[in-house]
């Protein structure tokens, strides 16, 4: 399991390749990459705040839960904080498994939990000013799929 919480930009393609290279006996790699979406009127920037003492621990607990639920050879989670710009990658999840169903389910699960259970908060600045992104009811409901 690799968990990285970082301010720096990362290269999603390079991460996929180095993750895959370490999995010689695995047939299936699923990745999710979250990008800063440009919005109507133009996004001037996104600020991601996090809770440093809790973030890595919370992500590791979520990734360990995924490893208990599915047969995974490896899991990668990268999540950025700080100042981001339109089209930047925000975060990435990768799962490796012999079975594609496990790789898909685990990546989907990781995303649902990271969205609502890892201590990150997004603030978007547009021409209309800065505002905190609100959590969606959908995101909370998505967690029920896994219980």
């Amino acid at each position: 399991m690799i968990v990285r919480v970082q301010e720096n930009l990362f290269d999603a393609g390079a991460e996929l390749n180095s993750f895959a290279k370490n999995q010689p006996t695995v047939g299936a790699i699923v990745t999710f990459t979250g990008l800063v979406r440009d919005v109507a009127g133009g996004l001037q920037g996104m600020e991601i705040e996090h809770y440093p003492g809790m973030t890595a621990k919370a992500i590791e607990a979520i990734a360990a839960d995924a490893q208990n639920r599915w047969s995974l050879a490896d899991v990668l989670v990268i999540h950025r904080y700080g100042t981001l710009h339109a089209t930047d990658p925000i975060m990435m999840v990768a799962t490796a498994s012999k079975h594609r169903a496990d790789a898909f389910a685990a990546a989907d699960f990781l995303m649902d939990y990271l969205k609502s259970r890892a201590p990150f908060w997004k603030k978007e600045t547009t021409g209309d000013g800065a505002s905190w992104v609100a959590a969606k009811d959908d995101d909370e409901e998505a967690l029920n799929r896994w219980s």
Partner: protein
Amino acid sequence: MDIMYFAWVRERIGLPKETVETQAATVSDLVAELVAREDRYAAAFADITALRVALDQELSDFDAPLAGVREVAFFPPMTGG
């Protein structure tokens, strides 16, 4: 006890962290003490259902006891991913 605030909770209260002396038995009791202090706390805690709390860096809830807890954090629902 250290109290931390994140996102708009931090902005409304106007500081990221403070250390308080408290005999509050539960998170709710602590919130009541803070709200009684100043308007900015009352504004931040006006709707408790819009908030989350972590005790010693683990998600918890407002009924949880504070005995032995060293760090309490208040924040809105997370929006990672």
